[in-house]
Each structure stands twice: as C-alpha cells, then as structure tokens.
C-alpha cells in the first residue's frame, strides 16, 4: 500500500488558546497532520492545566487529563509575551505559519501587539481565526465567559430537563464541544480558499453565533408564530413511546424510541405481546402519543427486571432503536468504540498511559494520528533552535532572561 499523506500535512498553525474551544480546534487539526504550536506561559498557565481530573489525583500542570484530552497532537512552546523578545519570537512563529487561532476575549491579542493588523504585516496571506464568546464587535466583545453560561445564553440549557421542573441543562460546557467543529470547518475552508485565490482572511468567530445554529428551528418558530418551545424530558412530539427506562442494577438505563408503527409492533413482540399492548389504538402514533405516560410506566416495568444490554440487543434484533446509557466505565469497553479503535493509548511522560479520543471522521485515503498532549514548554528548545533559528547561546541567554517562562 502506498504511504498515505495526512490532509493537513505541511500546514503550520500557531495557537494562542486557552480552556477548551481554541485548543480543541487545533488539536483536531493536529490529528489530521497540521503542525500545531501552542504558545503558552508558566506566568499564567492555560486554565485547564489546573483543572480536574488529574491522573491519580496528583495536582501538576502536566498531569491534568482534562488538559490532555483537549490538547492532543500538538507542540507546546513557552513564551512570555510580556517580554519584548517573547513577543518578537511569537511574531517570527506567525511569519512562518499558515494559520493563527486565538480564543481570548476581543482586544487581548491587539494589546500584546499580536492583533490581526500586526500579524498580517509579517505574514500577508495569513488565515487568522479569533474565537471569543460574543465576537470581535458589539458591546459584549470584551466580556469574559466560558461554555456553561454560553450554553444558557444560546438557548440550549432551557430545553434540557423536565417540564415540571427548572431546566437542568446538559452536562458541563456543552457549547465548547460544538464550536470547535465549526471553527475547524471555517479554517479548512479558508485554507482551500487561499489555495485557490492566494488570499488569506480574518475570521471573527463568535461562539454565541455558532451555538445558536443548534437551536435554529425553535428560533424560527418563535419569530414566525410566537410559540416558545419548551423542554419535554425525553418525549418527542412525533414519536411514542420515546424515553429512557430503568434496567436491573444500580442506575442503569436504556433508551427506547419507537419512531413508526412498524417499530411499535417490534416492541410489542419483544415484550411478549402483553394484553395491554394489543389495544388497536396503540397501532397508530396518535393513539400512542395520547397514552404516552401510561406506556412509559408499562415499559419501565418490563425493562426494570432486565439487563440493559439484553433489552438493547433484543430490540435492535427487531429493528427497534434502543441503546444502553453508557457510563464512563462502559465507554472504554463499548463494542463499537473498541472496534473503531476510537481511543488511542499513548504514553505520557508525566501522566503515564492515557487514552486519547479521535475525531468523529475517518478518511479513506488519509490517516488520522492522535498523538499525546505536550507538557508545558516541552518543545520550546526544539522550536527555537529549529524553526526560529536561534543559536544555542542566544537561546540560553533568553532563557536566563525569563523569555521562556
């Protein structure tokens, strides 16, 4: 077989990122062959280097699994941007790069003398994407924030939970895991555009504007009809039964969704055709929707004594959509994820063995290689002596001056 070339091979990206959105965007690009250089500093470390969980609960900037998971497949250079030589080296990095990503609030890069206007002078066809909460313009442009509130502002939190209770919202910083998908789309589209036109571009990527795409039908509905969509637990207005049901064991659950009349027949058959399920009213969606509450109770009685996997296999064999609610332990053993080799085990010098997740896409002719996350400043010397062309003596002098802190 001929050697496969990674799609982004030869593309160099410099990341001025922190937390999740910026780092995850470039991490994915790194998995597809881009050379990603993360610019960070010990004077103010990336906040998720200090966030749990730590491997074996040992608190250390190089031991956070959270940081590791969002920073696979990249290099780390430690640069103190407050030092003029640090800034100079950052500019030199950019002059040798194709793409710059920053995820600070609007104005921070410019304050360091690293705004788009500054960078485009050293790299005229630069592609730069700035991903902050609210965008580079507008009254909120310099408001800090993070994914949890953004999930609330963009309308997602409101729609997660039970109609008779306050919303609970999805787990954690949900939008942090949708925004990088769109950031990467913008970057690769800009790369192809530059390939065809020779032109770079500045991308103002407001995380709020990416996030509200995920509730667009509800927004259109409100604007047109005045109807405000409400959270509905696990119900669906166009399918019943549609829910999450308890199984044998502690906190074990299976999702079952009957999307059409044929699947209802499958579910009835799987349950052993009990008398209550043979009601002809239930053969049609309208009838099932009208009795949704009662159906949920009946199905919960049936699943309650069974193993979650048993219910899933039985229903799937009858072509009824059903799935175990996998927990953190299950995921590493999930037959499909194992089959796909979704997690790659890598040896990290501080954390030891760590399982890194892949991106959801696989190409037929181009590889995805997930490499371990870097320690803070791990590649400083390599990049300085190599790409930046410093002599060893100068490197040591700058090091003593605190440029690589």
């Amino acid at each position, binding site marked *: 077989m001929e050697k496969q070339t990674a*799609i982004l091979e030869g593309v160099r990206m410099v990341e001025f990122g922190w937390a999740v959105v910026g780092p995850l965007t470039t991490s994915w690009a790194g998995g597809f062959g881009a050379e990603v250089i993360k610019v960070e500093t010990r004077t103010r470390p990336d906040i998720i280097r200090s966030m749990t*969980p730590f491997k074996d609960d040992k608190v250390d900037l190089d031991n956070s699994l*959270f940081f590791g*998971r*969002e920073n696979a497949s990249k290099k780390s250079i430690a640069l103190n941007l407050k030092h003029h030589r640090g800034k100079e080296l950052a500019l030199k990095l950019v002059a040798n790069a194709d793409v710059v990503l920053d995820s600070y609030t609007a104005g921070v890069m410019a304050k360091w003398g690293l705004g788009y206007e500054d960078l485009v002078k050293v790299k005229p066809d630069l592609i730069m994407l700035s991903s902050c909460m*609210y*965008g580079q313009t507008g009254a909120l442009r310099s408001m800090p*924030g993070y994914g*949890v509130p953004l999930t*609330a*502002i963009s*309308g997602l*939190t*409101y*729609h*997660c*939970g*039970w109609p008779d209770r306050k919303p*609970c*919202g999805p*787990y954690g910083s949900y939008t942090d*895991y949708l925004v990088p*998908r769109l950031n990467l*789309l913008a970057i*690769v*589209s800009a790369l*192809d*555009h530059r390939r*065809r036109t020779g032109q770079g571009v*500045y991308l103002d990527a407001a995380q709020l*504007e990416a996030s*509200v*795409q995920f509730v667009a*039908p509800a*927004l*259109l*509905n409100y604007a*047109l009809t005045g109807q405000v969509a*409400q959270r509905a637990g*696990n*119900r669906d207005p166009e399918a019943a039964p549609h829910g*999450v049901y*308890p199984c044998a064991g502690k906190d074990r*659950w299976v*999702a079952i*969704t009957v999307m059409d009349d044929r699947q209802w027949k499958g579910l009835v058959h799987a349950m052993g055709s009990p008398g209550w399920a043979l009601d002809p009213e239930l053969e049609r969606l309208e009838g099932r929707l009208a009795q949704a509450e009662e159906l949920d109770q009946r199905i919960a009685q049936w699943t309650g004594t069974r193993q979650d996997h048993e219910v899933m296999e039985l229903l799937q064999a009858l072509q009824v*959509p*059903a799935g175990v*609610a996998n*927990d*953190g*332990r299950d*995921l590493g053993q999930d037959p*499909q994820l194992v089959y*796909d080799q979704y997690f790659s085990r890598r040896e990290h010098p501080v954390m030891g063995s760590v*399982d890194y*997740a892949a991106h*959801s*896409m696989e190409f*037929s002719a181009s590889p995805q290689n997930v490499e371990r996350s870097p320690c803070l400043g791990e590649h400083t010397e390599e990049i300085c002596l190599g790409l930046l062309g410093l002599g060893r003596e100068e490197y040591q002098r700058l090091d003593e001056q605190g440029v690589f802190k």
Partner: protein
Amino acid sequence: MRQDRRVEGAAPVGAGFLSGYRVLELAGQESLFAGKLLADMGAEVIKVEPPGGDPARLMGPMAPGVDPAEASLLWQAMNTGKKSVILDLETYKGRDLFLELAATADVVVEAYPPGCLEDMGLGYEELCRVRPELVMASITAFGEDGPYRDFMASDLVIWALSGLLYICGDPDRPPVRISLPQSWLHAGADAATGAAMALFHRGRTGQGQRVVVSALKALERVAYASQILWGARGRVLRRQGSALRIPPMGTTTPLIWPCADGFVAFYLFGGQMGAVSNPALTKWMDDEGMGSEYMKAMDWPKFSIGHTPQQEVDQGVVEPVAAFFAARTQRELWDEGVRRRVMVYPVNDASGVLAEAQLKERGFWVRLAHPAFEQELTLPGPFVKTEESLCLVRGAAPTLGQHNQEILAPLGLEGGR
C-alpha cells in the same frame, strides 16, 4: 458538460470560501446541516429529493396555514441557500440520471444506512466511475462497519450510547436529553468539515476520497468528562442536575436559579475563579439593600466551597443570593451583571435568544422571503464573519423541485421523475 468544475483554478473572488464546488445532498434529516453549512460557505448545494419530497420536509415544528411540503420549520432552518431537484433513485432511470448529475459534482453528502447506496448501484466506487475525483461524505449513526453497523438509531439512542445521556439530568429522575435534537447537527458539522478537508486534499493531490462520520463518536466528545474521570480515578461520573457538588465535603450549590421572569445561570465559584464575581455581587446586593453580612465579611479568594459545611453555604450565600435573583428579571440581572462584572447569565428560551442585544448589534439575524410564507423567515446568520462575507446565508430553502429545469436541462435531462 461542466468541464470548468474540474479545473482547480482560481475561484470567483468574494463569493464564498467554497465557491465553484458543486455538492449533491441526498435525502434524509441526517444530512441537512452538513449541506446547509457547505451552502453557507459558498458551495452550490443541490438537494436531490424523491418525487414526494425529502421525508425531512414533514418534520416539525410545522407552520400553520402553509403548503405542507414547505411548512416544516426544521426544513426551512436547515436548507437555506440550497437548490432542489427531484430524482427517483428507486428507479433505474432515476439512478442513470443521478449518475449523469454526479459526473458534474465535486461532493456527495449522504446518510443512507451502511451498504444501502452500494445495493442501489450508487456506492462510492460506482460514482467514481463517472467522476473519478469525487469526494463523498457519509454520515452514519455508529460507523459504516462494526457491531452497531446495522443498529437502528435515533437522536436519543445516540445520546445514550455516546455516554452523554448518562451524565445529563436530575439525579432522582432518568437521564435526559436536550429536547431539540442535536446528534445530526454535531455529525453534520463534522461531515461538512470532512468534505472541505477532502476538497483541500484533492486540490493539492488530485485525489478524491470518502469521509465517514460517526455521530456516536461526535457526541462522545461532548460527554468528555465521563471517560476521563474513569481514566483518572476509576470513578463513574453521575448526573448532578442543575447543581454542582464539590468535594471533599460534597457541598452542593445551584447552577440554575429562578428569577422574576424565568431562570438565570450563576456558578458560585470559590477561590480565584470567583474572585471577581463574588465581591462584585456582594457589593451589588448591598447597594440595593439586600446585602448578606456573611458575604460582606468573606475573604473571597480564600472561600473554599468544598471545605465549607452545606448549612453554612446555604444560609450565608445561597439563600440571600436566591432572594436577590428572585426579585429581579433576567434582563435586569444580565445587563447590570455585565456592568458590574458579575457572571450571571440568562437561561434564554427562544424569545430570549431573539432579544439578545449583542446579536442585534452585530446584525446577526437574516430575514428571508419564501414563496410559501406570507411573512419573512428570521434565521441565524453565518456562524463565522469575514469582511468579505465569505460565509453567508444565501437564500431561503428551495421549494420541492424548484431547480429541476436549471440543473437538469443543461445535462440534457428531464427532471421530475
């Protein structure tokens, strides 16, 4: 024939990032968002619909009093800027016509069950016979191979198997999803990215290829914390609802708080994380005559929630803050919170999102005329802004078969069959 499309030369400047590429998007709700994003990026996206229309045209919410084929607001939101042709892929003739059309295309986006297109004679290899450099983006629930290959999927089932469902919801009730389906949006965004990457690769090497997206993997990523907590400590992460439980004492604080007209989100952080918001909130409450002596006496950077007993946190902080929030509206809290640097945010419903001043100020919303609707349709604008408007919502969703003549006639084909 459209020989110009095969030339990887200069793209029309200013039109869009992906101008000059033709994308064929096959039927099914799973593909909608991928095609919409590629259209926003400037590609010509042609929705290939069966004679009765894409089944996704029947998915709610539905607008009342509108032609049923055009009334789906999910459809209207997810098909902006596309074209529509009707081809019956169930017939030999329809498939032949599709192959003619595929010969002019750069990308096919599809979400048929694994193996289905191959059975129809329209698999990637067959399509490459008429268009050797074709890119194909396939959206699957669980992958195109493996133990779940033939599993039936739905949004909720993908949530379940991905691990995301398990960690969402109140602890005393079953795990719960977001009521607005999300799986195909995450997977669709990835498929659009995959298509753009494959086009970039083709431009550099001349080689087309196929990209397969797994919605299962896409959503697992959203459940990030579940697998790493198991990896770190062998502990199973459980759903906490709208509250945060902090070790070692397990002190719990609310995340979602009722206010006068809805809900707001406010994270009570300890230590440095709360060093700005907490004193600012303390002062704000005091300024408005609702101050808490406990909060006023607190040295906030040293406040450690996990080391403070539940009752002390409840009486000293949570109850006074809850009373303060309950007496104010979302907008009052959000606007004044921004001014005072207190991180309190609205839990917006659809009306709240539409009312966000920041989005209005940035001219985010687009208004589109559609022949089946008397009113204009208000929709989110582009997800990324450039001075040159290279990403742009380019027009309303097409009516069924609207572009049969335009697309099929130059190929010497007749549509509508």
